[in-house]
């Protein structure tokens, strides 16, 4: 595989101190590659957003390092940081909160162009804004002069993607980008992200609770529990052949219209669930490769 664009290398993040310390992530490692997507899934509160925020340089890791094209960003000079800010862009969950209600769509897209693409000047800016909107399948003539509240949720999320693309990024971090959107819009956004990934050779970190969509766009998947990645590998293999008890539990709970809750097969047994949680919550540094590229952590304590 090509050199990684962005790597989290043994990154730990804790919040607070003393007995109330929260271990948001424990020695998390993964790499993002051009033209590929990594899905990050797992328990609520397992540290997925914390990983995203560290990649965006909003949080400093407590331990470990973040590498951009092989170089630690902690040691980067100011011009490297400017380049990094351009290269790594984020799309948030809430398409409503992430746009400023006081500004038009034209303003939202002109600003990153002026900041990060100084080579584009004068009338070329308007043309570039139009191109960005067309890339996300919005009609510039209709949306340029509009304010965020005049667009639907799906349209707003497209504007967010266009804004992220304005800087010519190499990495896009998308934290639950479609969870506030309904199914009919969701697929359009996923197709769009997928197309960007392929055509612009973007590296994509896709955080989601919707594992079916992870399969839809991500080549690789990592499953988090209690701050650790417990299993990772090619998405299809992890879903078809889950090894770690938490991954199995997670997959067994994915909504399935074929099995109704009254069906005994749908039943999660709370004893077993508690055992999996207890076992998976213990930090475990050792992982085994079960098949090519497919790893799972050993359980410190076998569930039983």
């Amino acid at each position, binding site marked *: 595989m090509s050199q990684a664009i962005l790597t989290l290398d043994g990154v730990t993040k804790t919040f607070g101190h003393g007995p109330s310390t929260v271990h948001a992530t424990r020695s998390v490692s993964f790499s993002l590659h051009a033209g590929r997507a990594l899905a990050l899934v*797992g*328990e*609520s*509160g*397992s540290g997925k957003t914390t990983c995203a925020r560290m990649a965006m340089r909003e949080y400093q890791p407590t331990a470990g390092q973040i590498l951009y094209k092989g170089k630690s960003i902690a040691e980067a000079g100011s011009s490297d940081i400017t380049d990094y800010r351009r290269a790594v862009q984020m799309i948030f969950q809430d398409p409503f909160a992430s746009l400023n209600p006081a500004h038009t769509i034209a303003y939202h897209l002109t600003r990153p162009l002026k900041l990060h693409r100084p080579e584009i000047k004068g009338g070329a800016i308007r043309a570039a804004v139009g191109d960005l909107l067309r890339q996300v399948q919005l009609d510039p003539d209709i949306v340029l002069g509009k304010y965020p509240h005049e667009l*639907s*949720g*799906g349209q707003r999320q497209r504007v967010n993607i266009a804004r992220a693309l304005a800087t010519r990024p190499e990495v896009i971090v998308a934290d639950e980008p479609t*969870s*506030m*959107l*309904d*199914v*009919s*819009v*969701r*697929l359009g956004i*996923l*197709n769009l992200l*997928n197309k960007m990934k392929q055509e612009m050779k973007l590296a994509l970190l896709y955080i989601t*609770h919707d*594992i*079916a*969509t992870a*399969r*839809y*766009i991500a*080549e690789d998947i990592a499953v988090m529990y209690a701050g650790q990645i417990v299993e990772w590998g090619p*998405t*299809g293999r992890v*879903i*078809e052949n889950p090894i770690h008890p938490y991954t199995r*539990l*997670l*997959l067994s*709970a*994915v*909504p*399935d*219209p074929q*099995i*109704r*809750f*009254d069906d005994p097969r*749908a*039943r*999660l047994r*709370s004893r077993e*669930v508690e055992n999996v949680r207890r076992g998976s919550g213990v930090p475990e540094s050792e992982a085994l490769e079960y098949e090519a590229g497919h790893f799972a952590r050993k359980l410190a304590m076998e569930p039983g």
Partner: protein
Amino acid sequence: MNHPLLSVKNLTIDYIGDRKDFRAVDDVSFDIAPGEVFGLAGESGCGKSTIAFAISRLHKPPALIRRQSKILLNGRDVLDLTPQALAAFRWREVAMVFQSAMNSLNPVSRIGDQFHDVLMSHTTMTKAQARERAAEMLRLVDISPDRLRDYPHQFSGGMRQRIVIAICMALDPKLVIMDEPTTALDVVVQREILQRINDLRRTFGFSVLFITHDLGLMVQFCDRIGIMLAGRLVEENAAEAIFQTPGHDYTKKLWSSFPSLHGGALL
């Protein structure tokens, strides 16, 4: 349906605007039987939450319920309730859990006190009885009663959501309205919560109005489902039928935009 618990008849709701009114709910009628879980699905903005708020009598201006509309609970029109009757109606008859409910707990008040506030203001329970009831409710959602003295921030999001559900159930409501109650949670916690509610309704016989974007989840949990499109109810049927033999084109379109876990990749 012989004796529905809830009967919504010709419900029409407008958001009153400066220049133009917007019809968010357009002549919607459906029934929910005692003990039944009824789902409302449909795209964002189609009017699901507007209906949920109207049934709970929590709608506020600019929402205006048009005159011919009726919302009958056990035969009594919820829309005619006086303010005093309304106070008794909330929690005891109808309780509502929102998507962001886990953030609706008071951050500076212990969980036990929050139960206490609801119980004491709606019943003549003594303090000891209220404490016993709160402990019983927490056990129902798999949280140890020892934790009644804890504050909300000491619980995970999924636990907080379960606590809100426990508070909602404390007065034995006949109808529980759940508007996207688990959207922000992982699927394990989501399943635990909904499975527990499914068990509880089998035991206690309350009805549920369940709203979600996730059609797969909806079919698993609901007995019957109504599909909404732009303020109108376009299809209503048993959950299996909505899944296996969808009638309306819009329902078919909703299903076709669902990627499946064991389906192909787009890559």
